[in-house]
């Protein structure tokens, strides 16, 4: 596997412009003859599909949802960053770049992050032009808030529904192209494999979720905007259907998988309430701007929160990190909450929770102001828990939320398979070992609106080949593979439900490859996962047939891939003998319990190559170089 990052030469601020100039263009008259497949209609997929169609390409967009508007991007609450400096508080492209590289604990590519910061401003312009109703000041100008540990106010938001509004903007742009016939929309079709011809990505195989039909589709290039894989943990803040199948199938066809162990645990989620729990609900990080986090000073203090006096409370983040307080980055906030609960200070019936308290903010600003800022979140909290957060503190606990790891891509967002491009959360770029709040929306839209539509042109101009006949042996062979795998799943008639296997995998991953990892724990998981996988294929059961809507079959196919991915994550976490960002190896910490990086040994992206069912994956490395931001021990004291 060759890892050529294709980072343009020259000063960082000019790289992207220079690169755009050097890329080959496709003759506008020829664009409509070139066909691009976009899998995914989230922020990344919808923005890419719409823009490619505007540019003149023939686009087909796939999603397993019934409507593109249901992609999981819809659930993003807090906001989107942009270096607009509308607040005049000293923000700049360079500062956003710097914060993002540092926030990622120096495990991302400088050139990509700089480009992301540059494009952030264009995203806001684009969204406003599309009618995204961002929050505004009374004067009619856009409002901002500070978010996720940033010390400037650069986050744009639409109540607590920023992802929804940005996705509706991209969805509407997409539907305009669908209406005019420039994009063929194929909802309720799930990609199950990638078609390679002469080593290039030339198409996909899908299963229609309603009719069960397995079909092939060919094109000049393929784009995956298929989201993240947090559901490997079973319980996460992701939607129930989020899965790794598209990315994993591409990996098995040769696409390198980078840093699979870089996952983000979000500090502010509603705690688990019972065995039946199906997912976890995020309470936006913006709540940390006004909420104060605490636990009782005395372990096991069973009193109701309002009966515990200030003296008996430990506002531990404010105590440990006086300058950032409750706004420390996610990885720190999560680990400290876990420490508190491990040491017996946790609250709620399970003891796995800490308080997030708004009493002071309500006192200072009034209930109305808090309602205006967070009303919908408070309502959601009350619906789920039956407790009123205006009157008593919320209980929160960390939960799997985002995956920084993903398919490796070069500066052009192309994977190690020529022609296969990967955008949004599905790729590994930009966030390093920890993502800052409000930066995933930014990345997905930068990729989809402003990067991919140009870089893919360079690939097409250089490589577009002849159209591929539907009976081409590589097409037919891939279709056969999907058919036989589906048949094998349908034939499973053991004693365990698919859910029970997924739950067990999730617990294994959470215990051993979650917030804190050890070599011993990772080895335990690495022993158990292959046997669990065997149990799945031998003892799980899939009821129902293949010719209709069959939700058990859908889940089984996804869980089968999670069972393979989980193993790779543990392998990656074991190989990375350091702590960085969200990857915390207990063996590697500073005396204060912070993540201790090992820059001499691990300043690289680990890119795993698939070698077959019965052989171990091979690790390749892309070294990271820091010319502008000197790696330092992150300190938020």
């Amino acid at each position, binding site marked *: 596997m060759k890892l050529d990052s294709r980072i343009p030469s020259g000063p960082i601020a000019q790289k992207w412009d220079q690169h755009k100039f050097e890329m080959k263009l496709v003759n506008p008259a020829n664009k409509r003859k070139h066909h691009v497949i976009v899998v995914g209609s989230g922020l990344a997929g919808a923005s890419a599909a719409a823009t490619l169609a505007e540019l003149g390409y023939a686009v087909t967009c796939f999603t397993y949802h019934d409507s593109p508007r249901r992609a999981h991007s819809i659930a993003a609450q807090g906001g989107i960053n942009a270096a607009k400096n509308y607040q005049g508080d000293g923000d700049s492209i360079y500062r956003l770049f710097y914060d993002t590289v540092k926030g990622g604990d120096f495990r991302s590519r400088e050139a990509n992050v700089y480009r992301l910061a540059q494009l952030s401003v264009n995203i806001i312009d684009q969204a406003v032009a599309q009618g995204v109703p961002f929050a505004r000041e009374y004067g009619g100008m856009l409002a901002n808030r500070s978010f996720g540990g940033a010390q400037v106010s650069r986050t744009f938001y*639409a109540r607590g529904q920023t992802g929804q509004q940005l996705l509706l903007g991209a969805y509407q742009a997409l539907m305009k192209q669908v*209406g005019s016939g420039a994009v063929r929309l194929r909802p309720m079709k799930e990609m199950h494999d990638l078609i390679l011809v002469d080593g290039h990505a030339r198409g996909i195989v899908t299963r229609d979720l309603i009719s069960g039909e397995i079909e092939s589709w060919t094109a000049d290039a393929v784009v995956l905007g298929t989201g993240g894989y947090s559901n490997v943990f079973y319980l996460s803040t992701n*939607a129930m259907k989020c899965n790794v199948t598209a990315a994993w199938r591409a990996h098995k066809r040769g696409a390198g998988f980078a840093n699979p162990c870089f996952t983000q645990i979000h500090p502010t989620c509603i705690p688990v309430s019972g065995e039946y729990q199906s997912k976890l609900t995020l309470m936006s990080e913006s709540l940390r701007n006004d909420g104060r986090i605490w636990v009782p000073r005395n372990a096991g203090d069973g009193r109701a929160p309002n009966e515990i006096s200030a003296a008996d409370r430990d506002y531990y983040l404010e105590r440990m990190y006086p300058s950032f307080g409750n706004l420390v980055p996610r990885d720190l906030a999560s680990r400290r909450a876990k420490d508190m609960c491990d040491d017996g200070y946790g609250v709620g019936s399970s003891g796995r929770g800490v308080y997030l308290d708004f009493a002071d903010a309500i006192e200072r600003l009034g209930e109305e102001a808090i309602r205006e800022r967070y009303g919908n979140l408070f309502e959601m909290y009350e619906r789920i828990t039956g407790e009123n957060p205006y009157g008593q503190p919320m209980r929160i606990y960390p939960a799997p939320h985002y995956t920084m790891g993903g398919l490796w891509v070069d500066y052009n967002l192309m994977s190690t398979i020529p022609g296969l491009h990967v955008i949004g959360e599905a790729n590994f770029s930009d966030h390093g070992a920890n993502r800052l709040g409000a930066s995933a929306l930014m990345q997905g839209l930068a990729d989809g609106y402003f990067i991919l539509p140009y870089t893919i042109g360079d690939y097409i101009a250089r490589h577009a080949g002849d159209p591929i006949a539907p009976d081409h042996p590589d097409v037919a062979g891939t279709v056969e593979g999907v058919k036989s795998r589906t048949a094998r799943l349908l034939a499973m008639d053991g004693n365990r439900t*698919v*859910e029970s296997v997924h739950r067990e995998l999730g617990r294994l991953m959470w215990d051993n490859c979650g917030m804190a990892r050890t070599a011993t724990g990772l080895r335990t998981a690495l022993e158990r996962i292959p046997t669990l996988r065997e149990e799945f294929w031998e003892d799980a059961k899939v009821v129902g047939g293949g010719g209709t809507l069959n939700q*058990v079959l859908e889940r089984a196919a996804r869980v089968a891939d999670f069972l393979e991915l989980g193993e790779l994550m543990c392998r990656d976490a074991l190989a990375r003998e350091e702590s960085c960002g969200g990857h915390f190896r207990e063996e590697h910490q500073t005396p204060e319990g912070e993540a201790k990086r090992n820059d001499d040994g691990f300043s690289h992206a680990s890119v795993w190559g698939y070698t077959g069912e019965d052989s171990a994956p091979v690790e390749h490395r892309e070294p990271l170089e820091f010319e502008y931001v000197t790696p330092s021990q992150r300190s938020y004291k």
Partner: protein
Amino acid sequence: MNLTLHVWRQASPDDRGRFVTYEALDVEAHMSFLEMLDVVNEGLEERGEEPIAFDHDCREGICGTCGMVVNGRPHGPWKRTTVCQLHMREYRDGDDIWIEPWRAAGFPVIRDLVVDRTSLDRIVAAGGFISARTGSAPDANAIPVPKAHAERAMDAASCIGCGACVAACPNASAMLFTSAKVAHLNLLPQGRPEKAMRVIDMVLQMEAENFGSCTNHGACETACPKDISVDFIALLNRDYLSAAVGRSG
């Protein structure tokens, strides 16, 4: 608590469908309604029976994927709440619960509680957008938008496209959904240039999709989990009228 469920089962669009009764045992108050169904389904799977098909995804009330009629009410009894956010502390031991799909000509049943709502996407494709070519936008603060207008547009834009309004309407009209999208875009200065075309094209598409017409019942607003107001329907009618006059004149 133990409950008795009467669930609509329909194997395919052509199947006539029927209610089937299931016992839901040991249901906990903290469960969500869909988690209660998950437990019932896992029990069915263990016995080798096909589980109840129902659609859902975010389980946070934002994606608009879930939707079923619970004891005659779209999304169930809680106001401003999708069925995925309904929790079982609403119910008491021994309760009977009737669960059905959205029923509307514009939403054919696919299986059990899952219906086809692609008609709503086609209404959006007809005009529910602002044409703004990527990269052509002026600076975001170039056009100030009064806060009140932005907030009102946001109220309308909060629609999650679930279709409960259609299911609640005696005429199975999609007017509330359509008006929310028209209002969101027509209320903003950026949406003004395409205002007249948008409302006409979207209404024409709505009529082509087998939705009934609006006779001002208001059942849609009551059922809407996002509090979309029928005032937006009045706004649509006003915009439609002036667009129609503009066209003929």
